[in-house]
């Protein structure tokens, strides 16, 4: 904000106000008002709606499943995300650009397509891998692993795209210095690389957690028709809404909004410390 207002500092006051009203109006119409109405509907009967929802074992189960799936997906993406970022920034290999583009694919492809693709590969009856796996008693699609996979897929770029620019900006000078001082690869990674990208990691984790909690399309396909057992919070919202249980639908929606807002608040709190961390880098 500070730099933006400095950049437009010599514009006329009227124009500045006009732009402000325009932007704020746009945000209110498209984000704040609809989200606010969800909250309003949730608390229409005071806390009654929330209480009804949370006393339903299906709702509690779906919320727990959502949290579990999101945490697993984020954990998996964290490991692969850091690894892939290192690969993309620190190593040269044929097909690097293709890999980089592939990592962005989940951002471009509709989650529904992701779900369908996973079903094609892991379907127990005609899937590419599905049959041999189901012969060994491993279910992927229409079970929790499939939901985790779908969530991983859609959230993958978020962590990588946070870490890559930080790694690039950091350069490998510090890592070389660590090597020359006697550190092996593991020590160099833990003591130098990781602390250098820690804010990017935190930021990426929070973003992908928010994304994972809210994933609907891919999970919808992969979870199949089974009700209750494999139902995440977003799926439950849709089912309850279609069954005219609006109070439950709005209550769970509200909880999802709260979780997302919490994530964003965490990011907002971390942001200043990230930029504080980055300023000396620019100076050097």
């Amino acid at each position, binding site marked *: 904000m500070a730099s933006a207002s400095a950049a437009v500092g010599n514009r006329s006051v009227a124009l500045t106000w006009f732009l402000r009203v325009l932007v704020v109006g746009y945000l209110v119409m498209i984000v704040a008002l609809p989200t606010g109405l969800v909250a309003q509907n949730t608390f229409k009967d005071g806390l009654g709606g929330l209480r009804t929802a949370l006393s339903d074992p299906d709702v509690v189960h779906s919320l727990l499943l959502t949290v579990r799936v999101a945490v697993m997906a984020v954990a998996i993406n964290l490991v692969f995300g850091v690894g892939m970022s290192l690969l993309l920034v620190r190593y040269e290999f044929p097909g690097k650009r293709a890999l980089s583009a592939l990592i962005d694919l989940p951002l471009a492809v509709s989650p529904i397509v992701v779900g369908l693709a996973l079903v094609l590969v892991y379907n127990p009856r005609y899937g590419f891998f599905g049959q041999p796996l189901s012969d060994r008693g491993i279910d992927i699609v229409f079970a929790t692993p499939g939901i985790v996979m779908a969530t991983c897929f859609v959230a993958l770029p978020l962590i990588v795209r946070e870490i890559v620019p930080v790694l690039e900006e950091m350069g490998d*000078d*510090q890592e*070389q*210095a*660590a*090597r*020359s*001082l*006697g*550190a*092996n690869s593991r*020590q160099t990674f833990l*003591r*130098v690389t990781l*602390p*250098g990208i820690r804010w990017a990691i935190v930021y990426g984790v929070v973003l992908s957690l928010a994304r994972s909690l809210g994933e609907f399309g891919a999970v919808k396909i992969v979870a199949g028709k089974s009700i209750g057992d494999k139902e995440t919070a977003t799926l439950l919202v849709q089912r309850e809404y279609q069954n005219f249980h609006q109070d439950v639908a709005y209550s769970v929606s509200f909880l999802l909004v709260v979780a997302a807002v919490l994530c964003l608040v965490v990011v907002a709190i971390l942001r200043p410390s990230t930029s504080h961390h980055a*300023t*000396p*880098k620019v*100076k*050097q």
Partner: protein
Amino acid sequence: MSIEVKNLHKRFGDFVALDDVTVSLPTGQLTALLGPSGGGKSTLLRIIAGLDSADEGSVTIEGAEATHLPPQKRNVGFVFQHYAVFKHMTVAKNVAFGLEIRKRPKAEIAERVDELLKLVHLSQFAHRLPSQLSGGQRQRMALARALAVEPSVLLLDEPFGALDAKVRKELRDWLRRLHDEVHVTTVFVTHDQEEALEVADEIVVINEGRVEQVGTPDQLYDSPANPFVMGFLGEVTDLGGVALRPHDIEVSVEPGPDTSVSGTVTRLLRVGFEVRVTVTADDGSQVLVVLTRTHARALDLAEGTRVWLAPARGATTIVAGPGRAEPELTRA
């Protein structure tokens, strides 16, 4: 000999960075690798440190074969042009890094860090972050960090290149004094001939991936092996087919017995105590002569004055040939 480099070759794609380089760097000395940018000197230093690998050839450090050792096993200290400080660690932690990796006892680390910070005059900054230090302070910290592990050789890659002129000069003097105190075998890369002449015990001149000459600053300056070395170590001008330093030319306003070239003063440029005179010889060539202000005044030189030039007695001369490094110097 502390570092033996034999028949080193290194290519980056089509670019030949090092072409059959063989050089010995003596123990306990301060050696400069001097040459123009892109001449291969940094590559040589990085190969010695193990940060780059050679295509062919071998490196021996303190008698131990090191060609294929990873950098962390070579026991070399490396100082980077852009400091490469660990940004998230305090100054003290930066210096302690190598010792902590070696799992030395805490008390010993604290003592050594203290000692080193004193050596580089940064004791009062021990708990600051590197971002709160100036460039010169950061580089001194990087030096302390490299010295902490008691390396058998200390390698510095254009250590003062990113600093402004005044700090660079200070640090250069300081490095010389530090070396006299610590006596660790030190090799530093520079493209600044003044820096090399002032600081180094020995200079290795490297150009286009090859060693042009190895010697003490005096040897290099007084008896350069070829026009490149002569041109790189200082200004050179051409006097009747002989290359020599512009300040080694005698100027007189009347013909003498040793006169080799006569001409007319076409330009006079006063820079502080010296006067840079451009003489256009009768054959059309331009000769640069440097005189002191007093001398130029005594001769009453002005543009258009007829002058007779001769090499001074004892001047370093070399037959002017092709392959001069900085032809623009002779034109100046």
